[in-house]
């Protein structure tokens, strides 16, 4: 898959730079590719919705439909004419 990329500059410590270069050398790839892989992995595991909040959104399923039914009838910009 071809990814659209943007050039960016970041500051690294010497230690980080050495570790990145070592990992890139071992994987026979580039420092940039290693940085992208680390970012992908980290961002994919970043927190999404708190489980309790998610449960709250599920708990209001019925009442949400009741609330929205008619809520925007007087608002021509936001209503849905079915």
């Amino acid at each position, binding site marked *: 898959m071809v990814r659209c990329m943007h050039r960016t500059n970041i500051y690294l410590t010497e230690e980080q730079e050495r570790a990145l270069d070592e990992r890139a050398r071992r994987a026979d790839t580039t420092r940039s590719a290693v940085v992208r892989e680390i970012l992908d992995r980290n961002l994919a595991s970043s927190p999404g919705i708190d489980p309790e909040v*998610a449960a*709250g*959104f599920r708990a209001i399923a019925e009442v949400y439909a009741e609330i*929205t039914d008619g809520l925007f009838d007087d608002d021509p*910009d*936001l209503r849905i004419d*079915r």
Partner: protein
Amino acid sequence: MIIIDDQLSRIVLGGDRPGVLASDELATTWSFQYRLVRALIDDRIDGRLSRGAAASLRATAAAPPPRVLRVLDPRAVTQRAAELAIADRLNLLFAELLASAQHHGATIALSEGNIGRTWPGLMEQHGIPFEVLP
């Protein structure tokens, strides 16, 4: 990208990604986000949940994690939405939705109860792929 309505946004924020929503980046428009947040500011929501929980839902709906649900910047489509509103006699909600789908090359997914009478025909006319979810 798939652009979804307020009802599907609520489902997605609840941790579910039904059907076609499972494998694509999800986004909503500012107007649909507003409908969601507005509906959450209702006494009946507070009646179902503890006060703290209701506030957390509102805060999450107002600023959802982009990885879960991206809110599209309406400023990117202001002109196109206005043009569509005039040409096709659309309200703000649908003009922003249609313009956003065109701008981002996105599919539109709507819940069954959130489909305007004229919407399917207009989405077809403008070449916007769309899905209806139960």
